[in-house]
């Protein structure tokens, strides 16, 4: 199990870091060299694989910062909110729960559509802010529920065997990390999907290519360019499988028996 854990970490973290940094690297290259990647057009039926790949890279420079920004903001805001709920006055918990239920009353796509038409000039910042708000509440609710459950577990078992609350909490942080990783993977997938959906509808941010808008633009063509499909599918699978792999490692890191033990 230890060997597997080590190899998992060796594979998973570089994958996640590489995915995170590749956008910045492309952006840096583009900025430094003044490369004309921005002039590439969205894939069409005649687009070559190379052209589509260039667009894919270029879009990645925009998409990854958006995803990372949403992830960062929602995780930080979610953690802060859950901290307020767990350690603050009782009504905060009810408020967070109502907020969560309110968020669940409107499909995220519809919420984003409303947000987009509410903005005088649709921008990347607005998209990030709206999604961060939605996911922050979700993450806060998840963390608050986990925190309460840990409290109950400590009251039931930890205290009886003389474990200190701080120690108990430190040990549990690993479990929280696993949950956050799960949530992060879902958030990343949702950002791509929602961005693509908005572009498909015609509410995407103009002049800003992202992976979502790449997929949206390709989908608008009716018959999707094969190279675009390959790249889009490849990108989606890479993201999902990478996240999945990362999650596997995270879960193994918690000290639970590996899946093979079942």
């Amino acid at each position: 199990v230890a060997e597997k854990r080590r190899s998992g970490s060796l594979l998973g973290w570089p994958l996640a870091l590489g995915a995170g940094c590749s956008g910045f690297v492309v952006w840096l290259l583009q900025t430094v060299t003044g490369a004309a990647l921005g002039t590439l057009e969205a894939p069409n039926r005649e687009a070559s694989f190379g052209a589509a790949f260039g667009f894919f890279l270029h879009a990645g420079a925009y998409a990854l910062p958006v995803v990372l920004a949403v992830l960062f903001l929602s995780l930080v805001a979610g953690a802060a909110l859950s901290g307020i709920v767990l350690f603050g006055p009782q009504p905060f918990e009810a408020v967070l729960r109502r907020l969560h239920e309110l968020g669940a009353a409107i499909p995220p796509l519809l919420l984003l559509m409303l947000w987009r038409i509410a903005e005088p000039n649709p921008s990347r910042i607005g998209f990030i802010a709206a999604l961060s708000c939605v996911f922050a509440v979700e993450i806060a609710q998840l963390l608050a529920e986990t925190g309460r459950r840990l409290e109950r577990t400590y009251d039931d078992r930890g205290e009886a065997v003389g474990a200190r609350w701080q120690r108990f909490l430190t040990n549990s942080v690993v479990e929280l990390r696993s949950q956050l990783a799960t949530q992060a993977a879902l958030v990343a997938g949702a950002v791509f999907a929602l961005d693509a959906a908005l572009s498909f509808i015609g509410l995407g941010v103009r002049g800003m290519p992202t992976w979502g808008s790449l997929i949206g633009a390709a989908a608008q063509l009716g018959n999707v360019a094969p190279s675009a499909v390959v790249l889009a599918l490849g990108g989606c699978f890479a993201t999902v499988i990478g996240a999945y792999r990362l999650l596997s490692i995270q879960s193994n890191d918690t000290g639970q028996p590996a899946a093979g033990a079942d």
Partner: protein
Amino acid sequence: MREALRRALWILPTIVLVSLLAFWAAARNSPPPQGEEGLPLLFNSRPTRIETLAWNAALSTANAGAEAAHAEQLLVRLGGAALPHLLPRLDSLDPSERREVAWALMPVARRMRIREAADVKDGPEAEQFWISFWQDHFVDFKPTVTRRVTARFATRSTPLRREELLRLDTYALDEIIDQMRVASDPAAARRLSAAASHIAEKPWTIPESATPLAARQTVELWQAWWARHENKYTDPAGAEYLLAPALQTRYALWLSEALRTGFGRVTTGKAALDTLRETAPSTVFLFALGLLGGSLLGVALVALFRARKHPLWTRAAAGIALSWLGIPTVLLIALVRHPNEDSQRFLASALVLLSGTAVAVLHARSPSGRGREPRTVRFGRAFEHVRGAGRRAIRGVAANASTLLGVVFLIEYGFDLPGWGRETVRAVLQRDVTWLVLIVVSTAILLGFVHILVALGQSLFQLARERRIRSRG
């Protein structure tokens, strides 16, 4: 059971909040309709009071500044409704200012058809005219008197009754339009509309040859106009006074209009509620298919893979489900779109069903609660009981119901199916406030209903389980 009840009680505040949000988003960048210029969207920190409005206009008129012309027009428009607030306070102005204000009010006197007004030639005479007018008629400017005068005129129009009513000018508009609304006699509505037309200087009258439908439309026109302008002619009292910051907003006006007309019409010209009804079956069917069909299929798959014993099967199922959810729906739509309408329906249903199934499989595999954290990889352990898996699947799908509904919307738009999704995209592109608020409220109700049902099912399941345990001893 408590959870279901809580959800049911929470549904009304949710509807109010989401409708506020939808209205804010949809109307924020739209130009305000005629008569709503300057009104805030959701909260009016400075609600209009006719007393303040009239007195400020009088002061501007008296100062003869740059805004004097506009203030004079405002005074004339406010008309009789401003008199109870202005005439008793005229003494507090300087004589010259008093004369200016009195002279500015003379067009109102002429609109009131007061004979003596024709003889007034200058400011001092105007001042005398209004002083004597108020001494003679201040008792008429009371709600009870107005009600009686309007009712008498509505019953039978004589020159004297008409004179009495017109003398009250805009002060009587509230009563006139209210009695017009409830008038069962077409002649009464005709008389009242003619009086209102004269006072408000609007061309909306009911001719003698008008059909009942045309008469009704004219009355509705007056009601709609009054809803927008009421706050300029009347002072809120009681609860209305307290709620004025919320009532004197574009949202309140839109809501009152929507409730009065059954949500009116969408920008395509069709009745909003009819459009909602016509497009609901497709959306509700697809949503139910994803929710129920997906849960059932997910649980069946889980049971099947569990029977295979080897954890590889369950891992593969979860991996495929996770990958499926990772692919943007847009891409799936683009890949499977087909020109045949029947095929499109089938493909749309299949996509929704598979999305629901993927969510169900992912949730069914992992235990949650009771001190155990959800694990992504520990699939094999999750399938100890199909019943438990089913319960988790339904709970998971219900928790993701809003996302699933979003997928349904997108699929309907992508496959050009006549559902809420296609209509909503149209409404977004055309900034159709009515449809957007209506659809947001409808989705909130639909999703709330799903959550209530799931909570109810869970509590019933729990009860049955406890009973079973008790019977076993």
